[in-house]
């Protein structure tokens, strides 16, 4: 690949904001300052091998998976509708879907807090329907709800974009050969949109597994996900080594899951976005 001068700012950017932080992360993860100076150690990573921390990691992965699955189940039909003939000429619906993304992430999550809190809107409606005294805020469900709400567009947009780029004649050809809508969906549209689905899954799973704001606000202070754990190590405890080690392990987990997805994706023609 030929490098030209206009790629240098980008290379510098990458060096400063990706390579250097990553090296620092590696450095903190695997070193300790002792009396003999700085030495290599696996202690920080090993420390994570404690049921308490493993539980946190597992719970994070579990919630992120649930969130990703819900996003997929909700997001795929939404993408289909947005990309359908009736709406594709009319961008309003797609716009309506994107507009919430223009609102600050924190504001959106705070908004959910007021909706879900005791005597909040949802609570009142449930009470009106004679389902009183439901604890809504500070539950698993609230955290998943917040994640799904915030990350759903990341599922919808890649799928939507693959669907709108799909050659309409291919779908017509399938109909022409006798396939009704369900069959076209099952045998043509879904297989051909897999690259979008895989991008969507990646783009939802990654932020979901690392989030700490949503779990802090909607899960309450006592609710710890791996994102919170990392944040705590850096901001509260001040143990940069352990914080880095957790980040490193999390990164490995994400890379492995990416690898699995990617291998699966390769069987179809790829076009995903990493």
């Amino acid at each position, binding site marked *: 690949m030929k490098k030209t001068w206009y790629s240098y700012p980008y290379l510098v950017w990458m060096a400063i904001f990706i390579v250097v932080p990553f090296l620092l992360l590696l450095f903190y993860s695997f070193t300790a300052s002792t009396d003999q100076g700085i030495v290599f150690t696996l202690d920080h990573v090993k420390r994570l091998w404690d049921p308490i921390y493993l539980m946190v990691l597992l719970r994070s992965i579990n919630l992120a998976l649930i969130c990703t699955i819900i996003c997929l189940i909700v997001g795929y039909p939404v993408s289909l509708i947005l990309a359908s003939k009736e709406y594709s000429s009319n961008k309003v619906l797609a716009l309506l879907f994107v507009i919430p993304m223009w609102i600050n992430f924190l504001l959106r999550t705070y908004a959910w807090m007021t909706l879900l809190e005791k005597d909040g809107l949802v609570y009142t409606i449930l009470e009106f329907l004679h389902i009183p005294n439901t604890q809504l805020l500070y539950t698993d469900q609230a955290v998943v709800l917040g994640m799904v709400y915030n990350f759903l567009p990341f599922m919808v947009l890649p799928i939507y974009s693959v669907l709108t780029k799909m*050659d309409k*004649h*291919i779908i*017509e*050809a*399938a*109909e*022409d*050969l*006798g*396939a*009704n809508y369900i*069959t076209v969906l099952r*045998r*043509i549209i879904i*297989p*051909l949109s897999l690259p979008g689905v895989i991008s969507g899954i990646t783009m939802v799973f990654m932020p979901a597994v690392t989030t700490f704001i949503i779990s802090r606000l909607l899960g309450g202070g006592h609710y710890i996900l791996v994102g919170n754990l990392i944040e705590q190590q850096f901001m509260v405890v001040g143990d940069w080594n352990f914080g880095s080690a957790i980040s490193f392990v999390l990164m490995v987990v994400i890379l492995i899951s990416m690898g699995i997805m990617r291998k699966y994706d390769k069987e*179809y*023609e790829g076009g995903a976005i990493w």
Partner: protein
Amino acid sequence: MSEEPIIRLVNVSKDYDGTEALKNINLYIRKNEFLTLLGPSGCGKTTTLRIIAGFEQPDTGEVFFEGKNITNIPPYKRKVNTVFQRYALFPHMNVAENIAFGLTIKKMDKKTIDKKVAEMLELVNLKGFEKRYVDSLSGGQQQRVAIARALINEPEVLLLDEPLGALDLKLRKGMQIELKKIHKYLGITFVYVTHDQEEALTMSDTIVVMKDGTIQQIGTPEMIYNEPKNAFVADFIGESNIVPGRMIKDNLVYFAGREFKCVDGGFGDNEEVDVVVRPEDIKLVSEEQGMLQGKVESVTFKGVHYEMMVRSAGYEWMIHSTLMEPVGTRIGISILPNDIHIMKKVSTK
């Protein structure tokens, strides 16, 4: 003919937000014929085809299939299949899976499907390509897959939208021959779209000349050529020499008292045909070198070229050439195989 037409379009109009793509079309398509929709770009050929296939609903008018009104029947329930201009093969399936698609939907058992796929591959000359993915095929091969994929469903009517449009001239010629062979072999109705008058003339039983969403003329190639209804049709079809001839075998034709190599085929051996040669495709050579010998009868200067009438082998040949031979000269004429166009003879009633 008293036989019920297989497809009938009655007063069909179609409007795309302001553009009138079709204006009150009435069309009968007879069973087993090779009908060509011919016309310049944007005249509504594709729209007509899409209305027959069911992808488009006419704004007014009705579509009948074997006498039944199918105007509101969705495409997947119609007994027609389409070969799309851009092939529209399924990129995530291999050749065999593409071809088998229609049959797997009908839940046919695997053995029958495999057998039929093999037959189809044989028919379109693609044996051994079963496992290939479609994007690894050449344009011509993809086109054959598209044809096989449509034909395996044994449609009553095959719709083809400029199926050879993306191919180079040589491949095009070859595919024309193959398509004609297939048409003859299967004995089903073909509705063919093209904007190439030569292709229409050489392949069709019936030509429908269209312009701006209206039908200008419907007739056999000979009728369209010899008796164009209006200046548009005459201009669109162009000037040519037509002489009677006989196909000796594929790529060999007899006319004007001798045999000529040609690039057409798909006719019966010794079938009576009409041979079309464009005036600009006849080369003037010396008498000894000529395939035919004759005498120049008249010369007219036409601006860029001369138009000469040459009497030879009992016919008047119209020749366009930038070189002039004076009236009365004895000359030879030569015609390249590529320039000899074979037309199906109209049954003389």
